[in-house]
Each structure stands twice: as C-alpha cells, then as structure tokens.
C-alpha cells in the first residue's frame, strides 16, 4: 500500500524555510537552462520566419552568403525570364535584385559600434517580404532615404526616425520604421537599390536575387533549372534553408548555457540530497511508526523518492517563473554569415519550459534516490529508539 501524497506535502510545508531554500537553488539552475533554451528558440524563430517557403535566393556560383556574393544586372535580366517565377498583379516577374553590405553603427550595448546589414532593393523586393511601415513612410526611389527595422530603431539611437546616418558616400535620412514580425529583417536597414549601389561603386555588382516561385510544386524545378544553367553560373537555394543555416550563430552561447546548467545541476543535486537526508534523519521515528503500521520498505522508498520529486518539481516551477520575465526581451548576436548583428527576442514558450521541468525532476530523482534508500533500509526498532 502506498503512503498518501498529503503526507509528503505536509512534510514539505512544515519545514518551509528548508524546502524553499532547496527549491530555490534548483530553480536558479533550471532558470539558467530555460533562459538558454529561450535564447536559441528566439534566434531560431527569427531566422525561420525570415524565409518564405515559396522563395528562392540566388547567389553567385558557390556563394554561401549574400554579403560575399556578386550578381550582375545582365545575369539578373537573363534569370527573370524563367517561367517558374511568379508574376505580380501588374504582370512583372516577382524577382528582386538586391545589394547587401554592412555598416558600423554605435548601439546602446556597444558604443564602439556594431555591424548591421544594409540592403538595397526595389519595390518588388518590398512586395516580396511580409513587412509593413509602423512609423513614417517608405523610402522614395532616387532619394538618399532609408527605412530601418524595428529593432534597429530601438537599439541604435543614431538610426531613429528623422535622424541622419552616415554610410557610403554621405548622409542618409531615416524616413520610416518597418515591422517585419519576428524576422531578421528587423535588424536591417533598407534603401533604394540604385542609390546604394552607386554609393559603393557597385552598379553592376549587386549581391543576390530573390525570386518567388509560381507555387510550392514549382520551387524544386526552379532551383534546378537555375543551378543547371551554365550561362548564369549561379547557386540557388530555398530562402528558408539559407536562413536556417544561420541559426548556428547562437551555438557558442547555447553551448556555454548548457555547460553552465549541467555544472549547476550537479551542485543542486548535492543540495537536494542534503535536504532529503536531513528529512530522513529527522523523521526516523515516523519511519519506524509507518513500518509498524504495516507500510512496506518499498512504500517508504517510493514515498521519500516522491517527496524529492515534489521538491524538485517545485524548484522547476520556480525556475520557469524566474525565466518568464525574459520573454520578449531583445538581445543581439553576431552572425559570421552576414558579419552583422541580428536582434531577436527571448522566447520562453512551453516548449522550452517543459525541458526545464523535466531537468528539475531528473535532478530530484538523482538527489532523492540515496536518501530514500537509506530511509527504506532502517530497522524498525533502531528507528523508533532514535526518535
């Protein structure tokens, strides 16, 4: 017969201070793990929502990043006749020649300057993306005007609406702030393709072409026909694949976070063991009594083991609560693919809290096993006499 759970709950509440302190210790460990997962989750979300399943990104042959790619206008003109490319309501091919470069701006976090991506593009390029202006207006073709992503406006004081920023051959006026949902475009500055290429003397050397396929089934065919065309000499990939690969920018932080939480877990495990051993020795007489009442050694073992799980579970909940305020907080990480900073939000979702809770339970299981076994092993008479 099993010992009722209320017995364990009451025991945990009787020694409130000890229970809370131990649970809090486990909670901090879990919080570090959950925060780490939330960071990687946010980064992944940012990149995943950047790519559209219908989109194909075209780079120079063998190119792996827009920044180091080069694309001439003649190749672009040859490419857009491909029948796999969708057309907009005006009948124009949904293809956008774009130039990407990186500039350095002072941010709140690093006053010495962080790199951010600048993208030159035309009206079709904007039409292809799911972005909308939240403040101000779009840049006008032929003007030295730029629109900045929401997180750029937030993190870089120089790049706020109405300010001027300096890059290329002179000043550019910030005329709008765009919202690109969760995507990486929030960390970019957009301007007119012709103006930007002229500033960098790259009129005939843009970076990449973004295409929309007519439908999902046409995507592989479009990619193959572009890759196989020796005349074009380009590499085409799904836009989603391109951005998925960039999630690795968060790998160093992810590894550090996991490493730290594992070491902290070892410490918390010892602490949980300590608390459970104290509980066992304090309740020696109770254990003896329970045995006299007819509870088996196994019932005692499971009861103490379960109490440890409860304690750790409470710790896990505390940890999730501690990490919760991080949700939605913005941070940035540099990507070696773009040589620029991507801003993204921590995302504390159930999918990152669940591993945290399981981790806490595992801690409780490891920490509770030895004390529970020692409780079960006590001889009735000795236990009764000790109390």
């Amino acid at each position, binding site marked *: 017969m099993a010992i009722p759970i209320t017995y364990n709950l009451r025991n945990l509440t009787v020694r409130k201070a000890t229970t809370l302190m131990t649970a809090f210790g486990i909670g*901090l460990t879990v919080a570090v793990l959950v925060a780490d997962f939330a960071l990687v989750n946010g980064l992944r979300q940012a990149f995943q929502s950047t790519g559209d399943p219908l989109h194909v990104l075209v780079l120079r042959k063998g190119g792996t990043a827009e*920044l180091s790619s080069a694309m001439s206008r003649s190749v672009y003109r040859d490419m857009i006749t491909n029948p796999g490319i969708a057309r907009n309501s005006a009948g124009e091919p949904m293809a956008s020649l774009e130039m990407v470069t990186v500039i350095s701006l002072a941010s709140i*976090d690093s006053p010495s300057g962080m790199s951010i991506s600048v993208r030159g593009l035309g009206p079709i390029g904007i039409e292809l993306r799911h972005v909308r202006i939240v403040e101000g207006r779009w840049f006008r073709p032929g003007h030295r005007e730029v629109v900045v992503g929401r997180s750029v406006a937030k993190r870089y004081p120089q790049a706020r609406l109405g300010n001027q920023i300096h890059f290329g051959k002179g000043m550019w006026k910030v005329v709008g702030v765009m919202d690109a949902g969760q995507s990486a475009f929030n960390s970019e500055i957009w301007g007119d393709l012709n103006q930007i290429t002229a500033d960098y003397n790259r009129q005939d050397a843009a970076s990449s072409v973004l295409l929309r396929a007519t439908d999902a089934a046409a995507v592989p065919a479009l990619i193959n026909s572009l890759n196989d065309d020796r005349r074009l000499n380009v590499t085409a990939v799904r836009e989603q694949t391109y951005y998925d690969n960039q999630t690795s920018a968060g790998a160093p932080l992810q590894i*550090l976070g996991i490493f730290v939480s594992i*070491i*902290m877990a070892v410490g918390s495990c010892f602490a949980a063991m300590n608390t459970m051993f104290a509980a066992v020795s304090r309740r020696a007489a109770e254990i003896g009594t329970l045995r006299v009442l007819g509870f088996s050694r196994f019932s005692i073992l499971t009861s103490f083991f379960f109490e440890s799980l409860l304690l750790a579970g409470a710790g896990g909940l505390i940890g999730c609560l501690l990490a919760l305020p991080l949700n939605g907080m913005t*941070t940035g990480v*540099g990507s070696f693919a773009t*040589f*620029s900073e991507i801003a993204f939000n921590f995302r504390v979702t159930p999918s990152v809290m669940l591993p945290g809770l399981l981790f806490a339970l595992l801690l409780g299981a490891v920490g509770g096993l030895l004390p529970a076994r020692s409780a079960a092993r006590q001889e009735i008479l000795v236990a009764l006499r000790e109390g």
Partner: protein
Amino acid sequence: MTKYLPLILKNSLRNRKRTGLTVASIGVSFCLLAFLLAMYRVLFYGGQQTPAQALRLFTHNRVSLAQPMPASYEAKIASVPGVQAVTSWQWFGGVYKDARDPKNFFMRMAAEPAKVFTIFSEMQIPEAQKQAFEHDRTGCIAAKALADRLGWKLGQRITIVGDIFPVTLELTLVGEFDTPNHDEMLIFNHDYLRESLPPNIRDIVSAFLVEADTPHDVPLVAKAIDTMFANSPAETKTETERAFQLSFVSFLGNLKLFLMAICGAVTFTILLVSGNTLSMAVRERVREIGILKTLGFTPGTILGIILGEAGVVAVAGGAIGCALAAVMCGMLRNAEVGMQFLKLLRLTPAIGALTLAVAIITGLVSALPPASRAARTAILASLRYTG
C-alpha cells in the same frame, strides 16, 4: 577566537554526510564561478598584453572585415609619421585536410616575410629559419604549438585548398615560432598568393598590420591612418590588436551581461545551500547551545563559533572549487578545438583569491541569520526546546 578552532572543526565534522554534501555542492558551484571568472578575464582582458602587442595596430575596412581595401593603401600607411613597419595581412580561409574535424582549424594568414619579424618583435624563431622564410616563395612558418599539435616537421608539405580564393596553396614548412599570443597561426608569403590569383582580385587586401614606433604614437597613428582614408570608397578602421580581438567577442552576443548574470545566480545558489545547511545544523543543536551558555559562553562567542563553522565549510568548498576550476581550465587549454582564446584560459592567483573571498563572504552572510538567532535565544527557552 583561535582557541575555539578545534571545537569549530569538531562541530563541522559531526555530521560528516551533511558537511560532505554541502562542501561538494558549493565546491561545484565555486568551481563554476572561478571558471566563469577565468573566461571573463580571457575574453575581456585577453590574458596579458605584451609590450610588443601594445605597439601593433590592425587596419581593416570600416564597413566590415569582409570588405577588402586596395593594396595601394600599404605604401600610404607606411608614409604616416610614427609607423615603423606595415604589412598586408590577408585572411586565407580555405580547407586543410578535412574541414569537418575542428582539429584542422587554424588561422592561415598571408603576409610579407620581410616585415613579419619586425612587426611580431616578440616572435622567437631561429635566424636561419627567418632567412629561409624570406627567400622561399612557397615557404610558411607556423606556431610551434600548432606544428606540434598536427605533427608537422620542418620541410613538411602543407596543402590548403582555397574557398574564398580560387587557389590551392602548396606550402612547405620552413620555420616554427614561439609567441605568447598566437598559438594557432600559420603565416605564408603574400606574393605567392598574389601570383596565383586572377588579376581582378590580385590587388585587394583584407587588412594591414602596422607597428608603431612607440606606445605614445599608437593612438596618433591610428587616427592619422583613418583620417587619410576618410571619404574614400574604402574607409578604414584602425585599432590596437587587443581592441580588435575584443570586438570579436562582442560578436558572440551580450556575453558580458550573460556571464555576470550567471555568476550572480551561482553565488545566490551557494548562499542558499550554505545557509540551509547551517540552519539545519543550528536547529539540531539548540539545547546544546543552551548548555554552552549556562557554562558561561557569551552570545558573542557562540555567534563566532557558528560563523567560524560556516567559514570553514565555505573555505573548504572554495578551495575544492578552485582546484576543480584549475583542472578544467587546463583541460580546455589542451583541448584540440583550435580556439585561440582557450589557450590563454588560466586560473590566475587573483581569480583564486577572489573566489575564496566570495566563499568567505557568502559563508558568513548565509550563516548570520541562524547564528544570530542561536546567540540571542534565552537559555531557558533553548534548554526547553525539543526539536
């Protein structure tokens, strides 16, 4: 107080299991704390800066590292007053053997052999090998640690297949150098690379290394170079080698804040664990403390004895933590992961002292509430106590 030391030691060894678990728990936490502090030091203070390193400046394109500069800049930089020597410093990515094995990752830089030894004045290399490097077009020199790690001997043929550059380098190892700051580097002749490249990318360089005459000249030279190229198509950014390395760290995200947050969480966990143990110990000894008081021990002495016990446990944990952290740093230093900064990871005496100081402070602070409660409790109340 020292005359009570035997009593304090006896007290702390009374419940060996509990003391052992507590020391283990906080030992692991202190190990993490010391390790994170060592990381912090390496990342943000970069080990120590040698006098030679302090004279070295790094000039790259203001826009980003991925953007090249005209090779003609070199002559212009050389003419700046205060410049002792300058060399092109071209990053050559490429693949050595199998790129998937992180062991095969190291820096491959193209430079001018005649200038390298002036600029890296701290480099220790036999005169004959210097001569060989300056005269052998396909010769290269490597850090001794790197050569040892990959089992290279003088005369070794080293093939590196280019990725950014459409070139395969066939190099011969002609020298091995010793230097405190660059363990993972191979330097080869820039002329060899230049000759192998197609004309359109032959005369561009990704960076220059500049040696200033005196430390006083360093900021002046940096300013003069950047002013000289201001408003040109390729503006420059010149910073000390150290500042440049730090800018790479900022790429990993807001690491400073993350490391500090984790250190805070770890310290707080230690506080909880140590406080929990002490209050369990004190609770068990209430009667005994009452007896001590009847024997004439003053509240102050009792406070001291309990605080002393906390101190002993904390110092033991701190010492074990430092020892573990030193082992961990050593393991990472020798790990073949090819990350330059890990080679400098060291548990310095200062970090050890800091960790021990934190140990003593957390030990005393955590013990203060239970200790002062014990010291204040009236004799009769404590003798009556049945816990």
